[in-house]
């Protein structure tokens, strides 16, 4: 579906500097896969997504979407894509149902087809009751569902989602995930960016971690955890500040240790065993917890803990 090699995007800023948003990435996304981009703000995820969506010409490298070149066949490619932008750009001058209808019209479908499709998608997004409401009257979760429904008017083969659930409450996120699962089962290729590790683990078959415009890791969630983290993590909580006292002792127990303001993270293959050893070594935390490694551990390992922007 997507093939990229050495894909690069640079912008010239006002000050005459050149910003290298994407610095030569290689990608191959086969049909039917759910593929995720992970990375901190400014890592180049959105720029990559915009190039895939054929609204941003690449600076250099190869890119082919659905076997076509975005530079010359942008319209033909976009005809078969669904796009969910990072910020909802719904048409506030139209009602909920009209939003779907008009958007379908943009693809050139007949009027009767567009109305029928609009009703079908209202159902899908659980917005039938709001059909004639103004977009401004919708909650954040409803708007997001409407944006996703809108991206499906042309029954896309490839759906691009830029941070689909950012800013939503847990219920709304789960409803959205449910909808995305259904699409995946129906064979739609999903490409998404996210900051949420749980989202990536839930939805993605395979993902890449981007940092500084480059791909720093690639694989399935399980592969990434296996490669960049340990099976389990022991979290030892302290009164803030006192964790430093336990640091030298704890660091002897494991290969990798993270110091946070109020706790120590010990990366280990067997959490219970490590916790016992810690107690035996005289470490007395306020509370302790053994959990499985998550993508978050991978992510922080790869991109560091300090803010990048």
């Amino acid at each position, binding site marked *: 579906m997507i093939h990229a090699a050495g894909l690069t995007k640079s912008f010239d800023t006002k000050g005459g500097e050149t910003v290298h948003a994407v610095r030569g990435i290689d990608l191959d996304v086969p049909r039917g896969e759910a593929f995720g981009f992970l990375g901190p703000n400014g890592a180049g995820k959105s720029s990559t997504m915009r190039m895939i969506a054929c609204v941003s010409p690449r600076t250099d490298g190869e890119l082919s979407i659905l076997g076509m070149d975005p530079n010359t066949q942008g319209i033909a490619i976009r005809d078969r894509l669904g796009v969910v932008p990072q910020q909802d750009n719904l048409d506030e001058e139209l009602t909920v149902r009209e939003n779907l209808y008009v958007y379908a019209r943009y693809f050139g479908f007949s009027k009767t087809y567009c109305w029928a499709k609009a009703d079908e998608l209202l159902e899908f997004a659980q917005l039938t009751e709001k059909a004639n409401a*103004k977009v*401004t009257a919708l909650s954040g979760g409803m708007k997001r569902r409407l944006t996703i429904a809108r991206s499906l008017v042309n029954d896309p083969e490839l759906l691009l989602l830029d941070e689909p659930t950012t800013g939503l409450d847990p219920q709304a996120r789960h409803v959205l995930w449910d909808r995305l699962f259904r699409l995946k089962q129906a064979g739609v290729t999903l490409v998404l960016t996210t900051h949420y590790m749980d989202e990536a683990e839930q939805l993605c078959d395979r993902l890449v971690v981007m940092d500084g415009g480059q791909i720093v890791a690639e694989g399935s969630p399980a592969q990434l955890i296996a490669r960049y983290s340990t099976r389990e993590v022991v979290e030892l909580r302290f009164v*803030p*500040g006192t964790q430093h006292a336990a640091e030298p002792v704890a660091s002897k127990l494991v290969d990798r240790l993270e*110091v946070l*303001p109020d706790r120590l993270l010990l990366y280990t293959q067997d959490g219970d065993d490590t916790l016992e050893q810690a107690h035996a070594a005289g470490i007395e935390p306020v509370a302790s917890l053994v959990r499985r490694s998550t993508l978050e551990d991978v992510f922080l390992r790869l991109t560091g803990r300090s803010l990048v922007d």
Partner: protein
Amino acid sequence: MTTVDEKAGVRAADEPIRRPATAWTYRIRTWEYLLRQWRPYFWSGLAEAAGAPLLYLLALGLGMGSLINKRGTEALGGVTYVEYIGPALLCGAALQIAFSEASFATFGRFKWHRTLWGITSTPITPAVAADAHVMFISTRLLFSAALYYLVLLVFGAAGGVAGILMIPIAVLTAISCAVWIMVLSATIEDDASVAFNMVLRFGIIPMSLFSASFFPISQLPWAVRWLAFFSPLWHGNELARGSALGGLPLWQAAVHLSVLIAVFVTGFLVVRKRFEKRLVV
């Protein structure tokens, strides 16, 4: 590491100095804040405030005036056309500024930038914020009216010494309309551009045209002449013209002034209430 830094940061901070505050301190601080927001637009605003009158005076005062003066100006009270329209242009320009500040700019602080919610989450009350808005808009009006007056002086269209009274008259006229537009801004939730368009097209523009700005209302048919009485701009124009050219009986001046003050005071009281209603939920 982090914890240590944070603690050091707290320790390094000086003990804040706080002076006792009254409602007036808050009014002045909020006014100052609004002025600061305006500062980036100060010079372009000033250029506009001086450029617009120049163009109007050239095009209408001199251009159209040449045709009117040729035919005799008894209907204007014997003065030249540029002298006739000068005071009204000053009031009309103030009204334009009042509209733009009281409509989109004020509404934007409720809806788009939400700065008014920020302001009133401090000890500043909605009513005080409303006061500060009135103070700020008046300040802006004062600046541009004074500038307009200087341009009129250059054109010899500023009348006698008493003509300087045109400045406060224009400010009063414009602010009396502004408070009512602010009432609207504090009330509407959506479709602001539709609402303000209506105010502009069915309020400000007809008011500018039918309030003896460009011709005496005696030139209009009886049926529509009385409408002018309901236009604050007409009262302002009559007062301004009276102060620049004289010939306005004192009792008439008193009536005009009373109307303007009444429009302003009622609007001001309503707008304070509206700010409270909108911001205290």
